[in-house]
């Protein structure tokens, strides 16, 4: 499934639409070049989850926990050098915890993908144009991806290809 957006604010809206569908232990794996809009999408999700504090970059701290209607675990694997370090940061424990995980650079290690997840790959097509490739894995991941895209097709400012 693909979504085409033409402004950062639309990517943000897409995040907000996803927030209302999320349940504890849902995992979103985000990939895309620097500046693609991974954090913009997470900001939208955070707003939808009722997170009040600013969503600052997790690159340095690796994990930031934001309290909301559901806890948001915002992770960034950018600085990790090898998959052994996933254990060091209690990555798998966090994914299974009682909140929603958004993992930037979540495609960095094949071991990083849990069975159930939604993968979002963002490509930069122009200064403000982005294409988001969305794939659900596992029963819950596929269900969530499909629900999300149905919700997105009702929004304006983006093109959804189911």
């Amino acid at each position, binding site marked *: 499934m693909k979504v085409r957006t033409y402004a950062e604010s639309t990517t943000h809206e897409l995040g907000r639409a996803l927030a209302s569908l999320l349940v504890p232990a849902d995992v979103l794996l985000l990939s895309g*070049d*620097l*500046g693609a809009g991974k*954090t913009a999408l997470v900001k939208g999700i955070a707003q939808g989850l009722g997170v009040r*504090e*600013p*969503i*600052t*970059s997790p*690159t*340095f*701290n*690796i*994990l*930031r*926990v934001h309290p909301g209607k559901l806890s948001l675990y915002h992770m960034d694997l950018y*600085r*990790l*050098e090898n998959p052994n*370090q996933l*254990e*060091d*940061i*209690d990555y798998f424990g966090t994914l299974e915890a009682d909140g929603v995980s958004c993992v930037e650079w979540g495609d960095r290690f094949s071991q990083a993908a849990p069975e159930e997840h939604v993968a979002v790959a963002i490509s*930069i097509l122009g*200064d403000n144009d982005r294409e988001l490739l969305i794939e659900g894995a596992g029963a819950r991941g596929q269900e969530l991806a499909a629900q999300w895209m149905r919700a997105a097709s009702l929004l304006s400012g983006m093109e959804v290809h189911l």
Partner: protein
Amino acid sequence: MTIDDLDTAVAIERASFPRPWTRAMFAEDLSRDDRVWIAAETGGRLCGYAGATWHADEAHIMNLAVESAHRQQGLATALLSELLELLVCRGVHRATLEVREHNDAARRLYESAGFRAVGARPGYYTETGEDAVIMWTDDLAAPGASARLEVLGEHAAQALSDVPANELVLAIESSCDETAAAVMRGGTELLSSVVASQVDFHSRFGGVVPEIASRKHTEAIVAVIDEALTEAGVGFSDLDAIAVTYGPGLVGALVVGLAYAKGLALATGLPLVGVNHLEGHIFANMLADERVAPPLVALVVSGGHTSLVHMPEWGVYRTMGETLDDAAGEAFDKVAKFLGLGYPGGPIISKLAEAGNAAAIDFPRAMMHSGDYSFSLSGLKTSVINHIRHERDAGREVDVPDLAASFQQAVIDVQVSKAVKAVKETGVGTFCLAGGVAANRALRQAMTLAMEANGVLVSVPPFALCTDNAAMIAAAGTHRLRRGDRLDLDAEAVPNLRLGE
């Protein structure tokens, strides 16, 4: 002091004075806004208090009492000096009080704070027939008087604390990548400072490179602390206190240093002091330059932080603004990475920028005119990346030095403009540039130029103190120790800890 304290206050009052204040008198007084009341507590329970009323530039000290079990510890001196400082902040220049003529201890206390006997009210205390001695201060806001108050307050705080002067403090820092320990005497004399990424350390301990992993901190921490003690020539039994960073930072990393510090405090019975990592960076400036003291404004810029902090007095912090997205150092790293220049990005970009034209590309100065102290660097990062893509798509070679210089200038312009605004608004005379990005030469120069134009003292620590270390935690920890701050043994790491909370 609040209404909840009144039962205890009335009990102290009855035990202290022949003519005690009643509960109703306290309650009425506490509700008035031309009064200042301050309290001293021990174990969460009131053990002393002081109150004054003021009008225009004159104040009247109405009451000062300390529970008998806590007398002779400097508590009354601390209460008096604190009360006078608060009054001076409200515009008071002179203060007066009445004291029983035979209360020698009280008269000595007031004289030490600058009060002089100027007259008497004969037979004022009818219960004993004693005269009241009327005492007045000279101008409290005059430079000599305020310095004396400060010294008095420091001596009192020292006397109050459960540690001796020239205290020996072991400090532990593990908030991010570095495992570090330091031993310091008296808050300034550094006996050792070990950072686990030091080259000689690696070779001695088998090439342990602590990365982001708490496991790596766990592996390194015992050896790092042993090394710090050995280098200082001291053992655990020589220490007077333990200071540890408890936030902000990576939770898995913070807990390692904190767990070690708590364990050591439990085993040795030594007091444990918690330090905010950003506060540590500000104290690095004080270690490097003894003229640096509050009131000041500090900009802490590093790979993980971009925070503008107002420190009006010792122990008081107000976070004026922070980044809403990426930290300054992170923006440097990400741009360098995108250009394939390596890590860390700061030194590489600043080197390249020296050969480039800072006005070549007009990158956005985000939030420059937002009117507040928030920073945003994510948009700048995206603009730089878009620029590179456009050049490549057009088949042009990216002029890397021009790009580096223009990007760096955009970062610097915003940092300088916000810092200058903060210094002007708070009216402070001292500015500290702190954290790893403070090593950026162009930023140092721009900041120094802008601040000196405003007559402000600028402090930039040497590079070794800019990056994470435990010496700065020891200095900040010693200050907290003297103020009586203690961390409970069940305290937890606070990854999002903000200064002033």
